[in-house]
């Protein structure tokens, strides 16, 4: 069972959804904080949902307020990098780039992409955590980094 879990995580890494930051988070998980990672991820999704909403609202305005968009995206990027959401982060960077040059279409396009990635990641991570919860604390203790 744990092999399956490990494989799942490895897949996530290989596909570029997650990066080393995720590992770091897992490292911070110990007896004092058994569910640290899950808590952080949950927090992330809550937070980012709000952010996404704001960005969508900002994108609907015209002309686009690029600086505001950039600001929002900056926050989103920060959060994403904090949990190690690699692909999401790269989309954020691209979005910010578009904002900088003032490419409205580019922004919108990237945002769509970003939302897709975001959704995908969320799903995958949820599955992962469900699985992990099933395996239980034994697995967590045995996990070697």
């Amino acid at each position, binding site marked *: 069972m744990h092999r399956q879990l490990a494989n799942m995580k490895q897949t996530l890494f290989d596909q570029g959804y997650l990066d*080393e930051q995720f590992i*770091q988070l897992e490292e911070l998980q110990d007896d004092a904080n058994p569910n640290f990672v899950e808590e*952080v991820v949950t927090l992330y999704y809550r937070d980012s949902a709000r952010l996404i909403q704001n960005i969508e609202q900002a994108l609907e305005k015209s002309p686009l307020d690029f600086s505001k968009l950039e600001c929002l995206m900056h926050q989103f990027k920060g959060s994403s990098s904090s949990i190690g959401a690699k692909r999401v982060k790269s989309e954020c960077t691209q979005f910010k780039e578009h904002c900088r040059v003032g490419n409205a279409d580019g922004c919108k396009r990237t945002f769509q992409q970003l939302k897709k990635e975001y959704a995908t990641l969320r799903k995958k991570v949820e599955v992962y955590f469900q699985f992990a919860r099933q395996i239980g604390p034994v697995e967590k203790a045995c996990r070697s980094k």
Partner: protein
Amino acid sequence: MEYCNCFESPWPADELLMKYQYISDFFIALAYFSIPLEIIYFVKKSAVFPYRWVLVQFGAFIVLCGATHLINLWTFTMHTRTVAVVMTTAKVLTAVVSCATALLLVHIIPDLLSVKTRELFLKNKAAELDREMGLIRTQEETGRHVRMLTHEIRSTLDRHTILKTTLVELGRTLGLEECALWMPTRTGLELNLSYTLRHQNPVGLTVPIQLPVINQVFKTSRAVKISPISPVARLRPAGQYMPGEVVAVRVPLLHLSNFQIHDWPELSTKRYALMVLMLPSDSARQWHGHELELVEVVADQVAVALSHAAILEESMRARDLLMEQNVALDLARREAETAVRARNDFLAVMNHEMGTPIHATIALSSLLQETELSTEQRLMVETILKSSNLLATLINDVLDLSRLEDGSLQLEIETFNLHSLFREVLNLIKPIAAVKKLYVMLNLSPDLIEHAVGDEKRLMQVLLNVVGNAIKFTKEGGISVLASVAKPDSLRDPRAPDFFPTHSDNHFYLRVESQPLAVKNSGGSGLGLAICKRFVNLMEGHIWIESEGLGRGSTVIFIVKLGIPARLNESKLPFLHKGPGNQVKLIFSGLKVVVMDDNSVGRTVTKGLLVHLGCDVLAVSSGDECVRAVSYEHKAVFLDVSMAAVDSFEVAVRIREKFSKRSDRPFIVALTGNTDRMIKENCRKVGMDGVILKPVLVDKMRSVLSDLLEHGYLVESQ
């Protein structure tokens, strides 16, 4: 006589004849009797006469003859038979003795004759001895002359006197008309007339040395008769008279080097002078053998005397030179002593005079720090304080310098942090480097232990000096400082073949290499290296420079001996880098920190990180909240700099303002995902203690905290 018996008493005509016979016989008898008397008398008188027996015989013969003649006297007249008998007896005896004597004389006379021969022989011998005596006397006289001459010559060690005396004495002894000495010139190609006895102007005359007559004289050590018309002998004013015979002899000119132990000087000398002696003209005198011998002996003596004079001259010169040198050395020594004393006085005075204002500066700067200052002002004051401290150290070290020279400097050995020493040096150098737009790279090898036992202050000085010089003489580019543990094989330095460091458990050798990574370099390596060298030597190390060439800069490498602290847990530093997490948590446990991040995810992550390390974390999301919450209890504040709504710099400034005393203020660290250099600059400007790049690894955070707590600043690597 027989016929006389018949005649009558004959005093008539035959009387006269008879008378004469009578008288003759009488005198004969007298003579005959007197002879033996004489003989006896004289023989008695003489001491030695070997022929006594002969004399007795002869005496007897004579006596008997006399007796016969005496008795004959009576036979002239008529005589009795008795007389005749006596006469006969006497005659018979006489006959016997005479025959005996005659026979004896045959033996005696040759003997007597041989006496005569012997006498002649002895006389000849005596004549011969007389002749020899005459010869010996002459020789002895010659010897006396030579001794006297030698005495005269040797009584002076002055070259001129020697030569003059020689000529004068020779002239006197031999009764010469003219005596001259020709000396070889410096070039050795000519003979120069140097001294004469009577000739009035000796100088100026030269003859080439290669004349056959001169060669002839030089070839032999004997005096040679030369022709009076040869150039060396033409010294007298020409006249009609017959010039006397001339003799020339060579005088070897010996040098000190000619006197080897086994090498008779004759063989090794090359230079000769020529002595020419002329007998008086019109005197028909000839050179005799003994005179020639005299001349030869004198010439040899002159040579010896001259060489002695030369030796004396040289030794006098050497002695004078030595005396001069002594005087000069003495003067130099006194000057050096004066200089040293002056320097020491100067150093003492300077130390004192310069120390006073420096200490005043330091004191006042410290006081200034305690007052209300703006951030910029505070920064300035801190820099002033740091520089003043450095200057004070330098001034103290100037005094050290004089102690260094005396050798009385002692290292202050203690345990210190090697890594932080390097970082501190680098931090001190960085402003200067930045002004010149150079970069400084520090590379500490992994096997370099963190703590070492040694003189931290002096080591820092050496390091500062070396690195400072490197910066000074680099025009473009930068320098790199490599610190590592010196391995035995890498300690080989062509310039220090005697440097054999030994390894033991107690110490290791720190090797530091300062290398210019330069595009352009100016030359030079700085004067301070002399001081460094002394310190390095005190630390039982070695320092040297390697250079690739002109304009390429020089790499300074030094190796010093440092001790290894006994046990790590005995050192005064409780923090460890490596170790299991639990230990670390204990170390950081309870450490109060503040985290400010408006992004909840980021905030949570950072908080979780710090909690994992055991800290007591207060997480805030706004600047105001942060400033409000920060207290003296908190040791560190982590500000996320990438926030949009909040200006973290302002927060930092406000936090700094909140705490007047530096010791109360927590460390302010910026967290940023931005690798832009500007961020770092800005952070530094507002006075933050460090910048960490996000994402932050656990280990990184751990080391950051350790650094902060240990040293108060962060090393800026990666």
